[in-house]
């Protein structure tokens, strides 16, 4: 039996504590939306207005005029897709070996994979920039995605998922003459789709939002991503009034992911919470 009476007070206090904090948390989001539809007049009034005089939807039109938005969108989407596709191949293969095969040095290799988690990509921008330059692929979409083609997190996630699948299934497949590759493709991956989807959410979010590395290796619209384009926008137009257009651009680059997040809230949140399984 539950001691609901005792809990009542603490449940009510939880709501009382959480509600104002949640509203506070939302302020930057609301600020972004409301500023994106303001006019200069609204901005320049010293009294802050949450609701603009009129909806200045022309701000969004202006964004498309001052930056090659569709090009950036295409670049970003293709980098996200390319990175995830290559990652899903590299991590599935490595995860299969770590989960199922025996070979000398396996644990050491797996340890080397895990150490990658401790070395964030932004800490090694200098040598990675040199490598990308030596390859002659500066200012390409490949340069933006390539450094992330191996994912320690993804390898770990898929290894855990593969290990949870009973071996009997594979043994049957092997008797039918399937080799490792076909076992991964026809037995393991179909059964571990939720893990791969979870990884897609995490990887996709990271690469959609990634900023510093794409900033360094791109210098024209050819390979620039949306986040880099956003930063360029404020550098091109330094006067304060342009904040309406910058916020309109911020809404536009955030919207695709944000809409996905609202539609698929539960799987999104669970995918990120899944990172909590990564311990020990």
């Amino acid at each position, binding site marked *: 039996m539950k*001691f609901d009476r*005792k*809990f009542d007070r*603490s*449940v009510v206090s*939880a*709501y009382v504590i*959480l509600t104002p*904090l*949640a509203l506070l948390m939302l*302020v*930057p*989001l609301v*600020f*972004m939306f409301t500023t994106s539809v303001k006019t200069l007049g609204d901005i*320049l009034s*010293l009294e*802050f207005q949450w609701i603009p005089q009129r909806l200045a939807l022309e701000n969004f039109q202006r964004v498309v005029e001052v930056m090659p938005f569709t090009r950036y969108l295409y670049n970003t989407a293709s980098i996200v897709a390319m990175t995830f596709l290559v990652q899903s191949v*590299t991590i599935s293969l*490595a995860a299969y070996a*770590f989960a199922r*095969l025996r*070979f000398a040095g*396996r644990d050491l*290799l797996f340890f080397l994979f895990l*150490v*990658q988690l*401790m*070395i*964030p990509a*932004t*800490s*090694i*921008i200098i*040598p*990675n920039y*040199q490598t990308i330059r030596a390859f002659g692929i500066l200012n390409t979409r490949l340069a933006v995605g390539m*450094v*992330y083609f*191996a994912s320690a997190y993804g*390898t770990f996630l898929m290894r855990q998922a593969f290990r949870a699948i009973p071996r009997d299934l594979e043994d049957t497949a092997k008797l039918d003459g399937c080799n490792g590759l076909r076992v991964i493709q026809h037995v393991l991956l179909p059964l571990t789709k939720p893990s791969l989807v979870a990884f897609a959410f995490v990887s996709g979010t990271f690469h959609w*939002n*990634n*900023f*510093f590395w794409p900033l360094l290796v791109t210098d024209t619209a050819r390979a620039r991503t949306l*986040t880099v384009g*956003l*930063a360029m926008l*404020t550098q091109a137009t330094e006067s304060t009034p342009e*904040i309406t257009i910058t916020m309109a651009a*911020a809404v536009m680059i*955030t919207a695709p992911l944000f809409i996905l*997040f609202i539609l698929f809230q*539960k799987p999104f*949140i669970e995918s*990120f919470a899944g*990172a*909590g399984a*990564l*311990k020990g």
Partner: protein
Amino acid sequence: MKVRRLIPYLYVLPAFVFLFLFTYYPAGFALFRSFFHWNTSFIQPEFAGLFNYRQLLQSRRFWQVVSNTVIYSLSFIGASTILALFLAVQINKIKRAGSFYKATFFYPTMIPMAAAAMIWMFMYLPDYGLINAYLRRYGMSSVNWLNDRNIALFSVTMVGIWKYTGYYMLLFLAGLRNVPDELMDAAMIEGANGRQRLFKIILPLISSHLFFILIIAIINALEAVDQIYIMTQGGPSNSTNLIVYFIYQQGFRFWDMGTASALTAMLIVSLLLIVSFLFATLGKKVYYEV
């Protein structure tokens, strides 16, 4: 037979090639190049011994960056993890609308740091910004959030806390699933107060999550750079310059790759030392459920 023994390595190979090329080789390369003069006055890199390190250790700017990074990291890690644990415990209590609160605290994870930095930069504007507008409304004087060298680091830290707390909260919530309701009920009946329940029951049961979140937070703190690039460029008077931004400045603004490499090497070694130290000390005490 021999060929068959090689097959497992072929599976690992594609991932390993990229892992080596873009993590281990660059870490080693940075260490190697840190012993070279490699800047605009040298056509070819030239061996310099410990010159780059000596130069850095003697520069006030370097120590200021170290101090900024330590202050940023400690306040970011402390505030975001404590707040995240607090939110998780509260959300765990409620039965309705839990997913609304979860989404509300978590959504900043979905916003690119570049966009978040823009939003906060405009909220911080001295004259037209949201925050000062409210300060003025309640009769307080305006604050120069990003241009006052005593405040700018704090202002930048707030962005990090806002962006990451919801994510850590989510990880704590996953941990709190390990705390059985019955145990909390029993503790309440026995008269354990809130603090006892937190320190004697909740924290020990989620210690492996806590440990993991701490390590993620340390990495998130040390890799922070997007918001610095967008909001302050390390200023005013170097007061918000954090280690990764400093590496970027040395490498891409002053084209001093030798110094930038020395900084990179120091950052990676510190990261690995901190994490190994934590594993060796706290990691052993952590309670792992089977």
